[in-house]
């Protein structure tokens, strides 16, 4: 640009900004507020109306609370219930609720409110996205103001976990219909305002039972889709943290800046080369095993700038029931070709790889074409938007292979579901999973979970690629952010500035 033109540009700009203040946002002067950057904006603010993870990230533990709460380690600790007992047959849960808890509008929390909220989860006409987690409930009884019992149809070793999720947030009957726009809960922060497409602001709730424990007065969630805009927002000081930074290729830029801490943690997200087991030739276990032998996880993780842990089955490596099965089908091209020959396709075949519009799938997709190309499987990539992926791949099962992360915790049950999009149908696995669900002794359950992982690895149901890493970026002075992501939640109750 010639110098004279540049002056014209600057002249025009200076005239327009004369009224405005200069300088990047002065984060340092406000120690009671934090601005949190997020990639995705929640459509509504009620987890019972929409499945978007961003709803839970913002509302769970900040605005709403559940009976139990999932803490930063993934453990279950008291939430709105201060304690609970489980009957010896594992079917009756009795919750002792906290007394004196108030909603942000001053209305009291009690067992009748909890019953109303939990009844909505499993009711016949319920449209709650996570309804399937709660269909083992037979009845809910408010015994007195602070005692609630939940009767199950059969023991369910995941029930306490499910009832502690953001999906089971205890909402008041008066505010439940409007919680999608103006959420009212019992948590430490109350909703102040939303500017759709831009930000959501929460402020400290005066009604919270332990206000002294909460150090922040104002919390702003800002939505920034574009990865380079995210980096710029951090560098310019407009945003204090991206708890879930999603562009591994840009992390180096932030690491070089000594204002920021870049913290790697674990997630519940397994990245899979999801495979249509119901379609030829993928219905042949030998073909799936051949694919497993051809997958080079080291190369895939390298393309994620090294962020990720290899997996050999569908299970997170940080879980104590994890068993390392990455050596089940080691990288071995000759073996893979031999298996294809045994399966009757010695020269390989053509197949499509349908990719959703996310960075990891795009990067891994290109590598998968070359890795499977080495054993004669010629993949052609088809790009899909998320809604298309959901309809075409997930619901209609019209696909050969796809790359997707399954981010829910404890999600092995999908392999036992009839009609799930992988088309995996194994009586052995279903029986094993039934045992897992019925076994309320957690040590025993861990052993069963190991068996379950081994079955999935042996059957090579999907290509098991890597466990997603959580890349958290925040100002070095910001204390108390979660390093790991055991459940979708940006819990701010323990966050403060140093």
């Amino acid at each position: 640009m010639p110098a004279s033109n540049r002056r014209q540009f600057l002249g025009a700009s200076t005239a327009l900004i004369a009224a405005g203040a200069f300088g990047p946002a002065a984060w340092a002067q406000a120690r009671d507020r934090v601005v949190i950057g997020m990639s995705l904006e929640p459509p509504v603010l009620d987890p019972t109306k929409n499945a978007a993870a961003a709803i839970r990230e913002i509302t769970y533990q900040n605005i709403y609370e559940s009976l139990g709460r999932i803490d930063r380690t993934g453990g279950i600790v008291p939430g709105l219930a201060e304690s609970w007992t489980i009957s010896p047959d594992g079917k009756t849960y009795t919750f002792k609720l906290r007394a004196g808890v108030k909603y942000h509008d001053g209305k009291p929390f009690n067992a009748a409110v909890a019953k109303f909220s939990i009844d909505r989860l499993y009711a016949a006409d319920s449209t709650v996205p996570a309804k399937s987690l709660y269909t083992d409930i037979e009845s809910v009884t408010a015994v007195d103001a602070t005692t609630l019992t939940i009767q199950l149809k059969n023991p369910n070793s995941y029930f306490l976990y499910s009832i502690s999720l953001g999906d089971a947030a205890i909402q008041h009957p008066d505010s439940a219909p409007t919680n999608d726009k103006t959420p009212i809960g019992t948590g430490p922060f109350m909703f102040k305002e939303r500017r759709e497409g831009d930000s959501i602001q929460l402020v400290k709730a005066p009604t919270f039972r332990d206000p002294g424990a909460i150090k922040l007065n104002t919390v702003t969630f800002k939505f920034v889709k574009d990865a380079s805009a995210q980096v710029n927002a951090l560098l310019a000081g407009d945003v204090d943290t991206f708890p879930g930074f999603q562009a591994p290729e840009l992390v180096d830029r932030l690491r070089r800046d000594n204002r920021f801490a870049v913290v790697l943690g674990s997630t519940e997200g397994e990245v899979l080369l999801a495979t249509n087991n119901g379609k030829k030739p993928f219905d042949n276990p030998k073909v799936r095993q051949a694919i497993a032998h051809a997958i080079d996880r080291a190369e895939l993780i390298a393309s994620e700038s090294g962020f990720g842990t290899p997996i050999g089955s569908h299970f997170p490596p940080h879980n104590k029931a994890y068993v390392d099965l990455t050596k089940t089908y080691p990288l071995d091209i000759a073996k893979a070709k031999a298996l294809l020959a045994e399966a009757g396709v010695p020269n390989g075949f053509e197949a499509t790889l349908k990719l959703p519009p996310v960075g990891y799938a795009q990067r891994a997709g290109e590598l998968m074409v070359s890795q499977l190309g080495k054993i004669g499987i010629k993949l052609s990539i088809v790009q899909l938007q998320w809604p298309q992926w959901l309809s075409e791949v997930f619901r209609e099962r019209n696909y050969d292979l796809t790359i997707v992360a399954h981010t829910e915790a404890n999600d092995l049950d999908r392999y036992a579901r009839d009609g799930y999009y992988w088309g995996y149908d194994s009586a052995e696995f279903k029986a094993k999973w039934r045992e897992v669900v019925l076994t309320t002794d957690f040590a025993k359950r861990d052993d069963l979970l190991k068996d379950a992982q081994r079955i999935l690895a042996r059957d090579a149901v999907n290509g098991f690629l890597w466990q997603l890493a959580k890349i958290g970026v925040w100002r070095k002075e910001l204390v108390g952010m979660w390093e790991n992501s055991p459940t979708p939640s940006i819990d701010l109750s323990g966050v403060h500035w140093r």
Partner: protein
Amino acid sequence: MIEFLSRRFAAALLTLALATLLVFAVVEILPGDPALVMLGTDARPDTLAALRAKHGFDRPLGERYVSWIAGLLTGDLGASHAYGTPVAKLINDRLHVTLPLGAMALSWATLIAIPLGVYAAWRHNSAGDWGVMTFSQLGISIPNFWFGILLVLLFAVTLGWFPSGGFPGWKQDVGKSLHALVLPALSLSLGEIAILARVTRSAMLDTLREDYVRTARAKGAAEGAVLFRHALRNALIPVTTVAGLIAGFLIGGAVIIESVFRLPGVGSLVYDSINNRDLIVIKNVTILFTALVLAVNLLVDLAYAVLDPRPKVTA
């Protein structure tokens, strides 16, 4: 002139009516089930069916088209499926960002490009002309979102003169809101400045060769008067045509620029609505964009009539 403009107006209305059919058809055949997008992969079939019935996704196509058009005519645009907010409010809020952004970009495009073009034509084949042409070549080639990122790195991250993105809102602070639109408007207008400067230059080169310009110079008119009163007024016809087209591009470009600068405008609303399969919002915003472009074209027609009386005879 009245007849000319009313014909154009009737043509615009007809275009709009055809556009509703096209938009409806395209949006309805978009693959993807909005209910599945809302409820996610764990949703049970009965839950999905209940949600589809609630939002009327299961009604016949014709019925849905008629009720949409009836809504448009009565000003009732319905409510967004994803946000639950009335579509009219959603769009209205976003227009408060996109319209000023577009206006700022368009005014810069014209205020910068026309003097540049006039200068380049006036100093034809000089270093200045060469400079303008190089700038214009660069401006056309550089993608505006990338230029936007560069602007942010320089003016927001390094110098700290401007925010890196976001929008405080007119009610909060008018000055800061204008301030927040400066960089986005600049990146949005770069390509348009380049195109418009070229068009102005070549139109001016043509008119400067005309006899009446030589006559004006011969009778001793001041150079400024020759350039701006005689030559530019005649050169403005193609320039106005292109400026009208550019207004349409600006609206499209806003989709990307609003995402780079985190502006809660109509562009980012379209982007999010397509990803959420918020069909009712996509339909209404697209029609609104169509109406805006048609309105700008009508204004261009009006400008022709003012700039040059000839079209009314041929119309």
